[in-house]
């Protein structure tokens, strides 16, 4: 069933072409969901202070009572021009939200991914190499339990222990109020911005604020990496060429480190892309727990306010990012392993 010999180019084109209908489906899904859900942004801000007649007047003025199909057409046209609109709640351009808050989430997820990979690969290698020993069992159990722990629970325990009880790490936000007040954002990735400004004190401050949230999220995700790396190490160690290497008399140590581990780690790249959706979901919970001003955090805020424009724009960008990254990953995999193309 695996076709052979399709060129990389034709695979690339096919994959790209399939992105469009997928994006279209996602856009429609989002539109329908937001419109059909009860409650609307006007009432959310007004409700509880203004008589119904006024609310209706305003709703009409802003076009929320236009027929659904008209709203849908306008929505599609705007998205095609990359005009994700402005939020209703606080009149922010969605692109600005992506730029500023997206950067915050990016910083968090990259740091978390770093932790996840480090911890996951380490324990996965140990588990795979020393299979069926205590080290293996311990690593696997650790992976399972840590993934079973809800991010918000782990996060709060971490806040209490390190922040409150020991008092050595900050428990919320990206930086201390003063540091943040004085920071001039260039990329909105604070770690980089502080380096650009050559402000070492600010860099340490931002770094320390990143530790708890990134480690919490990263640890939970590492559970998956442990499992994956372990399996791949085991599989690789059984492969023919490993047998061949052993037969040639290469030392076990060299076999393990030079051959098996290297090859076991290749699929990790693939999984990084896979975990984007998972990471973004986990990021929502982490951001809420640590008051991290990322996209997940903003999304919940706008969702609560039934802010269609904001939620639409954000989710569309979310989906595009995930689709794009998985496209990249697929291409990379196809490039490395020709069997995968079809």
């Amino acid at each position, binding site marked *: 069933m695996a076709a052979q010999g399709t060129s990389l180019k034709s695979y690339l084109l096919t994959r790209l072409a399939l992105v469009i209908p997928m994006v279209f489906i996602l856009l429609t899904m989002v539109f329908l969901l937001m419109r059909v859900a009860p*409650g609307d942004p006007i009432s959310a801000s007004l409700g509880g202070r203004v008589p119904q007649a006024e609310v209706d007047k305003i709703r009409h003025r802003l076009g929320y009572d236009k027929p659904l199909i008209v709203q849908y057409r306008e929505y599609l046209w705007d998205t095609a021009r990359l005009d994700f609109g402005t939020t209703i709640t606080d009149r922010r351009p969605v692109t600005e939200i992506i730029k500023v808050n997206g950067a915050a989430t990016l910083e968090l997820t990259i740091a978390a991914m770093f932790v996840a990979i480090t911890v996951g690969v380490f324990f996965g290698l140990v588990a795979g190499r020393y299979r069926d020993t205590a080290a293996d069992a311990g690593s696997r159990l650790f992976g399972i339990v840590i993934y079973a722990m809800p991010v918000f629970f782990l996060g709060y325990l971490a806040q209490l222990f390190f922040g409150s009880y020991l008092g050595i790490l900050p428990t919320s936000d990206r930086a201390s109020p003063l540091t943040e007040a004085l920071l001039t954002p260039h990329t909105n990735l604070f770690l980089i911005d502080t380096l650009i400004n050559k402000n070492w004190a600010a860099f340490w401050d931002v770094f320390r604020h990143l530790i708890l949230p990134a480690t919490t999220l990263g640890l939970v995700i590492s559970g998956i990496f442990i499992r994956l790396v372990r399996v791949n190490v085991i599989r690789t160690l059984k492969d023919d060429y490993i047998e061949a290497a052993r037969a040639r008399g290469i030392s076990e140590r060299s076999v393990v480190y030079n051959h098996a581990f290297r090859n076991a780690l290749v699929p990790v790249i693939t999984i990084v892309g896979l975990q984007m959706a998972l990471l973004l979901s986990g990021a929502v919970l982490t951001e809420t727990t640590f008051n991290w001003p990322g996209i997940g955090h903003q999304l919940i805020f706008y969702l609560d306010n039934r802010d269609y424009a904001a939620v639409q724009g954000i989710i569309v960008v979310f989906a595009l990012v995930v689709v794009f990254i998985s496209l990249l990953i697929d291409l990379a995999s196809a490039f490395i392993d020709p069997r995968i193309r079809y």
Partner: protein
Amino acid sequence: MNREGKWRLAALLAFVLVVVAAIGAGAARSAMTHKAAGGIIVDGTTDSVTNIDPAGNYDFGSATADALIFQHLLEAGPGGLTPHPVLATKCGFKGNLKTFSCTLRKGVKFHNGKAFTAADVVWSFDRVVRIKDPSGIYTLLSNLKSVKAKGKYGVVFNLKAPQATWPQILTTGAAQIVPKGVYPLKRVKGNTTKQIGTGPYTLSKYSPGQQAVFKKFKGYWGKPAKNDGVIIRYYTKSSTMKLALTRKDIDMAFRDFTPTELISLGKTKGIVVHKGKGATIRYLVLNLKMSPTDKLAVRKAIAYLVPRQTIANRVYHGLVKPLYSMVAAGLPGHIDAFKTVYGASPNQAKARAALVAAGISRPVNITLWYTPTHYGDSSADEFAEIQRAMQAGGLFKVTLKSAEWAQYSDALGKQYGAFQLGWFPDYVDGENYLLPFYDAKSNFTSNNYNSAKMNSLLTKEQATRVTAKRLALMRSAQTLAAKDAPIIPYWQGAMIAVSRNNVKNIPKTLDPTFIMRFWLISK
């Protein structure tokens, strides 16, 4: 292990060392930055800002930020409730209660150096009415027919109907003064653009959802602020804010902690919980067109059963007080109408008698609605207590339902038969606690209450000049409201701020106006 392993181990050790160093270095450095902070007050809040432009917001978070940048012709407090001149020097009604004129203060400069004149006042009011922002702030000016400049430093307001409380309206967020031209006449100015007002601070940096940074304005016309600046930090969860406060990341917090957190903070070393007079209220709205609340006897029974003390003590640990009228206690004209008509504590016997007399079969099935986060997490606990009290004698069978604010605020009287709402005043006068609830024209609860007698009482009240007479009318309105019981008030909240013990003067700004006057605070 071989080279590979050693290299890996070394990398791991290096990583650990870096982390430890970062923690250590950071701890030392943050101590330094805190010392340098000196006169900057860092305040935490769980509110959020929608639009900074006064013509575009009607919510607490935005209003708190606005109070630092913009000012009014008249302002109420601190302490006293009568409006006193700020940007004006003298104001009064001319002849009848439909014409109100003010003389403006000379020598006031905006943050951009421009001089403050009557043209700015006219501009500010005109745009609020023109823009008709979805937040609804313009409804406060619904009685304004026109505003005209009289010379460079005089202004006249022409009202549609006589309103003795017009000076109070001038203290609300709809009446904040912005410079002509800088703020567009027909639309709301964006948050990322420079905000210009006459207030004691300028907004030097605003990161949406994160923090707002205010710097002391050197060219301020009035008494300079007692601190160098303010940073307001926005949190979504009060627990995170509490941790920040105990860790000294922030100096104070205003709105909102849970009752449990407040009790715990009160016991924490180095932290002070400041309580001042409050004027926010919580009440249960009953729908007069839906069963079973369309029957007066049912409403009376509920009024006899509401467990005010239990809620105040168990749910809020004494941080709120039982409330017996929609008009907040402490305001002129307040009477404990519900206490007079229904007694101070729940009374099962009288509730049963009311239902029996009307021939209503028991238990009465009723659904109570509340919203779980908008008014704080304790709403769930509040309603658990109400449910318990109503079911205790077998008189009611209560189903509790909740909906998130966006959905809830849309539904209200359209879909719900009995529901929770809260209110903080636009201006501190009993009228603001009566009109929006009992006057058929201004009633926003959609509970279908329309009493000709009440309408006429309230119309008369607005038009009465003599205070004593106006208060008498308010008292009659409250008694009628208790007898009809379309709405049942149950608690009144204090204005609470929590701070570290080195922060001074907070009690000075805690009053029923609910305005946090940061310029009075120092540390």
